[in-house]
């Protein structure tokens, strides 16, 4: 069993606190993604798990056993690095066999020239070669085994790096932004391939990325980090539909969530002239932030339903869908609305002037002054309808 448990991890570089009491429990075989802006501490967690960097306090357990006292090679974790970290002077086969060579040959047998005298060495090397072949076939890189990393494309290097980590059958795979050096098309393709690999291997994956799309599309659960802390841990859909914090709401989703500021009243939340019938638990007269996903706004306000007045500032037509940029009539705050092409075509002429945009209050997210989510009545009902 290789379930992984982090308890109270903290770490500082000089006066900068990169990890602040991080605790996290990862189930055996889970695909867990750590996501956040650069510098949020996500990569440091990986390196602490691998034993490449010591934590200041806290502990790491793999499979119920503390690994804090173990050297990196003894922890049986594999890591795929952002730059792939292939040994530049070794062939693909040599790169992939290296972890096994290091495990199975002793120091004397590893020495150049002298090591060749050992009869054991040849036997072990043959075994390793066979295992490398198997993994290479799985990844469809068997034709590349004799090449050097410099002769490979980005995607191929990526596979070799995966292969190198697969040969040792680790308990945990650690992946540090493995797709960020690939071009957009390949990245989309590798996303699917990696999740597929995870399913086939059934091993715990801890995946670090700054790209919310990767986090959303690949993971079983996502931990969003900011300033060395985990802000929210949950399924991708949790993070999208039920962010606990303004930072999460802003980070997840593209185009970004619209945030407008409003004031609580007895009847709801006042945003400019409009009154949104959202009743929250905080007292009246407080300034709150209302988060509206671009699809929570609509071009057809139904009479009697809440709406806000805005004026169109820019149209971004992507073919399949259209992003309409508005400025809120009173405050000028920007709003993005996501419309289908048909909807947009239908309303095109009307958009010239100031328009009323329908607001689906059930999907509104309210945050208090500190950025924490505040639940509201209309929302609670909606929760059930949100797909898991």
């Amino acid at each position, binding site marked *: 069993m290789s379930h992984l448990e982090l308890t109270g991890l903290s770490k500082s570089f000089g006066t900068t606190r990169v990890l602040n009491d991080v605790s996290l429990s990862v189930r055996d075989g889970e695909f867990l993604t750590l996501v956040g802006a650069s510098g949020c501490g996500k990569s440091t967690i990986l390196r602490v798990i691998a*034993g490449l960097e*010591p*934590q*200041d306090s806290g502990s*790491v357990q793999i499979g119920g056993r503390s690994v804090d006292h173990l050297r990196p090679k003894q922890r049986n974790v594999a890591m795929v690095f952002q730059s792939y970290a292939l040994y530049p002077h070794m062939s693909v086969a040599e790169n992939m066999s290296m972890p096994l060579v290091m495990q199975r040959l002793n120091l004397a047998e590893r020495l150049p020239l002298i090591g060749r005298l050992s009869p054991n060495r040849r036997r072990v090397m043959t075994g390793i070669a066979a295992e490398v072949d198997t993994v290479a076939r799985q990844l469809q890189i068997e034709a590349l085994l004799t090449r050097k990393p410099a002769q490979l494309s980005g995607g191929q290097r990526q596979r070799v790096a995966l292969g190198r980590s697969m040969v040792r059958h680790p308990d945990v795979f650690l992946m540090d932004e493995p797709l960020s050096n690939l071009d957009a098309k390949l990245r989309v393709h590798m996303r699917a391939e990696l999740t597929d690999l995870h399913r086939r291997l059934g091993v715990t994956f801890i995946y670090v990325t700054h790209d919310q799309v990767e986090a959303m599309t690949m993971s079983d659960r996502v931990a969003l980090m900011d300033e060395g802390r985990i802000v929210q841990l949950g399924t991708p859909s949790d993070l999208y539909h039920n962010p606990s914090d303004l930072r999460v709401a802003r980070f997840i989703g593209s185009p970004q969530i619209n945030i407008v500021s409003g004031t609580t009243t007895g009847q709801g939340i006042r945003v400019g002239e409009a009154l949104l019938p959202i009743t929250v638990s905080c007292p009246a007269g407080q300034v709150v932030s209302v988060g509206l996903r671009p699809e929570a706004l609509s071009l057809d306000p139904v009479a009697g339903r809440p709406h806000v007045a805005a004026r169109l500032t820019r149209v971004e037509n992507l073919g399949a869908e259209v992003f309409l940029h508005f400025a809120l009539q009173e405050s000028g705050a920007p709003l993005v609305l996501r419309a289908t092409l048909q909807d947009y075509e239908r309303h095109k002429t009307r958009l010239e002037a100031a328009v009323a945009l329908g607001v689906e209050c059930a999907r509104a997210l309210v945050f208090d002054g500190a950025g924490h989510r505040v639940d509201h009545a209309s929302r609670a009902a909606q929760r059930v309808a949100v797909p898991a």
Partner: protein
Amino acid sequence: MTVALNTARVSPGRNAQMRAEALAGYAFATPALILIIVLLIAPIVVVFLLSLTDYQLGALDWSWVGLTNYSDMLGDRVFLRSLGNTFIYVAIVVPGSVILGLVVAILVQERTKSKAIYQTIFFLPVTTTLIAMSVVWHFLLNPALGPVTSLARALGFSDFDVFGDPDLVLVGLAVIGIWQLVGFNMILFLAGLTAIPRDLYDAADIDGADGAWDRFARVTWPMLGPTTLFVVVTTTITAFRVFDTVAVITRGNPQGRSDVLLYTLYKVGFQDFNMGPASAMTIAFLVFVLVVALAQAFIIDKRTHY
């Protein structure tokens, strides 16, 4: 390694990987550290101590003499003369080789087909043994046999003896110094030139700075600032250490007009074995070099904003 005061705070993880790294670090740095102490630090300390004694190689007795060696040195005509000569030499070689190096680099940079050939030719002197080439230069400028003098004679100039004329000898040595350094400086400038993004010239073209002079003054020269500083400093230090040509060609003659610092130091220390005064001169030499190096570090700190 210190024992952690608060064992609860420091996890065992620190010890495993960090201790292995630190251990390896000490192991790998030790040979270097030993050599640094034996061949660098200790000798500098010894030289300084020697400069306060009247030690002579082979002598059994010696005594502390305080700063006498230094005060003697400042009153010594030969030392002051060699210091003066060295500065004159530096004052000719540095501008000469830096400006020529820059001009050649810019001209070579613009050539397409012949670039490699010119580069090779100008760099040739850097690779050669200066002693051997000094012998050749000596011969070239020989007043009786040298082709240069006979050419000058054929062109109607009066005879001249570069290395025999007190007024010309430093110029003659400086010409050899420049000859050897131009190619080196050219290569450094070429590296600086290729590091200037092409886009900047394109932008300058569109902005209206497309004449040769405008491009140089507005883009090339400012962008070469750090390179130029580096070239000037390296050239200064190299020129300051002039020795080989003097040792082979002039040996300080005529009339001591080509005595330079290192040559005088060599004579006092290794021919006359007056270790005290030689040590004082060494310290003086070290001070000059350190001043130049510090000036460079200071200017780089101040000036290189990009």
